[in-house]
């Protein structure tokens, strides 16, 4: 595949990171990644999907979780509509328990890229002081994420919502459609999904119904990292190893991100070199010990990785089949 000649230098410059995690030059330590052809194919497929949504829907929104997948999705959305702006807003469901670095990254990206950022928090949950320490991950996630997301989608009357989920993340996602139909109550019925053939996507919905769209369906975790490196996509620095204050609880490393952290008896924060494979609410997101301080290190570490990505998420361990259960309830 011939690579573009850069006749639009401003655009090329705008896609480069200024601060935060940077892609180093291809180091000799990093394993040979997939060829540009594969990433190009994945990019083309995703761009096609994103454009299809804008063509078919009246009022789409992109869910922006600030994570690496969201960063890739945002990058693809910019590509899909270049030289125009992204023609839909990005929505962040803020549980108020995200890592502080995520929030500052979010606000800076909105300023620098120039997209419309919407932030929604479930104010009922805040008023009831729902938090991950007192209420357990299931109840907390339901109130501050699932319910909050429904509130925001209903308030905005969105008929399509982009999400950054990938099919390789978790077994129940292997059968997820690219255009995933949700009924009026945002419920997902795995037995009542539309067959998807070729690249002819059926986005027709009745009022109140909606489609969740997953443009990264066919990407793997490693593809995402290779693409971030190849395209110089900026990600939250928490993905790279650094000394951070953590406590070890039931085998999970939790980062003490602010003064709200509840220590259990005998717990003392200690500085360890850690990074995160996924980002979410800091009290529910486990870190991994790592020395991978650059993207190339991360990719090299991934190649040796022996634990799958969602393992750091407390929510997935509540019970077997729990992600499928949450999706039925409307969790993304």
């Amino acid at each position, binding site marked *: *595949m*011939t*690579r*573009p*000649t*850069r*006749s*639009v230098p401003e*655009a090329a410059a705008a*896609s480069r990171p200024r601060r935060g995690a940077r892609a180093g030059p291809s180091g000799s330590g990093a394993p040979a990644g*997939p*060829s540009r*052809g*594969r990433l*190009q*194919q994945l*990019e*083309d497929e995703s*761009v*096609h999907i994103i*454009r*299809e949504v*804008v*063509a078919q829907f009246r009022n789409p929104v992109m869910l922006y979780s600030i994570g690496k997948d969201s960063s890739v999705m945002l990058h693809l959305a*910019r*590509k*899909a*509509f*270049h*030289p*125009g*702006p992204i023609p839909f807003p990005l929505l962040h469901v803020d549980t108020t328990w995200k890592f502080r670095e995520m929030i500052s990254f979010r606000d800076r990206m909105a300023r620098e890229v120039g997209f419309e950022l919407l932030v929604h928090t479930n104010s009922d949950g805040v008023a009831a002081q729902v938090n991950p320490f007192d209420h357990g991950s299931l109840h907390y996630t339901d109130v501050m994420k699932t319910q909050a997301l429904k509130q925001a989608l209903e308030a905005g009357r969105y008929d399509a919502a982009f999400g950054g989920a990938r*099919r*390789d993340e978790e*077994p*129940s*996602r*292997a*059968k997820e459609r690219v255009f995933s139909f949700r009924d009026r109550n945002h419920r997902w019925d*795995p*037995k009542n*999904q*539309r*067959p998807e*053939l*070729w*690249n*002819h996507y*059926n986005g*027709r919905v*009745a009022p109140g119904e909606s489609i969740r769209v997953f443009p990264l369906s*066919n990407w*793997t975790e*490693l593809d995402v990292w290779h693409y971030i490196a190849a395209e110089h996509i900026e990600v939250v620095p928490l993905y790279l190893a650094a000394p951070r204050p953590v406590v070890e609880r039931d085998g999970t490393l939790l980062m003490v991100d602010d003064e709200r952290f509840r220590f259990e008896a005998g717990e003392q924060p200690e500085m360890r070199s850690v990074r995160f494979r996924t980002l979410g609410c800091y009290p529910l997101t486990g870190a991994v010990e790592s020395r991978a301080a650059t993207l190339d290190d991360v990719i090299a570490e991934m190649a040796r990785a*022996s634990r*799958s990505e969602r*393992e750091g998420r407390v929510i997935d361990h509540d019970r*077997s*089949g729990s992600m*499928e259960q949450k999706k039925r309830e409307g969790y993304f």
Partner: protein
Amino acid sequence: MGPAAVPEGTGRHPDLLRLLTCGSVDDGKSTLIGRLLHDSRQLHDDRLAAVYKESALAGHAGGHLDLALLADGLMAEREQGITIDVAYLYFSTPERSFIIADTPGHEQYTRNMATGASTADLAVILVDAVRGVTTQTRRHSSIAGLMGVSAAVVAVNKMDLAGYDETRFRSIAAEVSAMAGALGLAEPVCIPVSALHGDGVVEPGANMSWYDGPCLLDHLEHVDAAGHPPAGASGLVGGRLRLPVQLVLRPDHRFRGFAGTVCEGTVRAGDRVRVEPSGRTTAIERIVTFDGDLEEAGTGRAVVVTTSDEIDIGRGDVIVDLAYPPQRGRRVTATVVWMSQADLVVGSEYLLAQGGQTMNCRVSEVLGRLDVDTLESVPADAVRLNDIATLTVRTDTELIFDPYTQNRTTGSFILIDRASNATVAAGMIEAAAPAAAWEAVPGPTLERQRSSITSAERAQRLGQRPVTLLLTGLTGAGKSTIASALERELFERGCTTVRLDGENMRLGVSRDLGFSSRDRSENVRRTAELARLVNDQGLIAIAALVAPSAAVRERARELIGPDRFVEVFLDPPLEVCRSRDHAGLYEAADRGEIRQFPGVSAPYDKPADADLVLDTSRLDVDACVRAILAWLEAGRFIPAGGTSEA
């Protein structure tokens, strides 16, 4: 069905291969996939640990690590031990990355297989070494071929249960080869494996030293997935240009670009192109991407192009090269895989979608259904879930298309139910359909010759106004009997009639027609044309036809003119019709000797708003005739007057 076609439209690069796996629950397909993932070291420790744990709890592998659990995702199927939908799985080796579409082998297989096959480069078909080639193997091969997956590998699984016997493998390979030849498919590669124990999947294993071919993974890593143009160093591929426009980008008044994915050929800056359906030509000015302008973009690239002329281009248009235009038309024949619980009904309207082209369409006829056991096309009126049928589809606007064998994107479509918005069918276009005679357009030089005698003059001479009575109903409903009695009664009253009986039509004017829905429709059309001529002469036409299709009767009404068309529905119970059938037609239909017999093996659409409904099991012939006469008198087609009390 299912020639080894080589469609364009999903050009791939050799470093990514999309696989379709097909086989039944018992063939060990999920186990084979699990084995590929496991032995190519694609599994993370925590997921593997979960599978070890679940194997102990719910596994069906009898003490072995249940690798099928890796492929089967949803709770319901874990409990049932079967796969219920298409699952996409990912793995890569240093040679290649793979996307597996895993489709189930049980009752929903056609729908799911078609879905998985629509994007696949290569099919992996499982055969049980003990059972050998089965009907199902033929079905899977046939559907894969039909969907344009021309490359196939047959994994002869469970070699452990066949004693790793070379002779057994060779005889199955010979059977597979013969089957492919009979189906007109490219010859598949056969590989002996034991998914349960791992022999022949990733490593050769110690049990089949007689086999000197590649292991399955080795083959998948190196196979040239035929059916897709090889990408050269420049990414340049051959073929005609097809760039369906998804979206017009107009961020400000200075820029107007057309976004879309090239589904065949190469778009180049400076090339002259044609825009369908307008047919306008222009030149590609720029190929704009986020990373800068391109000189050219090949198959699969999602691009934005600008043109040198300000011509009107919108979503659904297709940018093509000048030399090889696509086809266009309002009628196509297509093979569809029916995916809905609700049957296809001839005459129903659906939305047809092909990328940006969305239009209303009507299924005007079912040409045949594929019998998946014999792989022959058989006559059919109903098309049900998982059926594969050939249809004629009529659209309300022109469809731009290529035959599916030439392009998977511009040759395919989905049908959408307009009420539920469900995707009900996947369609593969064969060709433009010849227009049915109903739509045939007479030559432009023809001119209708008018009579100098006015209809008022005729009415005065004949003492009647022209009308066509259509007596419709099942065989045995009494159509000919009542037509005969009515004709006699009108004659006695001094009226002038022409009787058009279906049977007489078939003895003459329609002697070339059979009894398919298409031929029945044509027989009604010819009768209606005759009735119109008869009416134009001021005469009363009495047509006695089964005319089972409501849509066709409606067309007859339009042709003759709604104000002079009377639909009389003769509606006795079916048992009464059967009891009157002295020719034994119903029994012959029951035995399958007569096919597509309305009321037995083909539908009869009961008229929803007939002008008259007569139950001939409760009314005798005279009563029926009196009712029709009363209707004609009330409509002032015939003068009111003393009914002859013969």
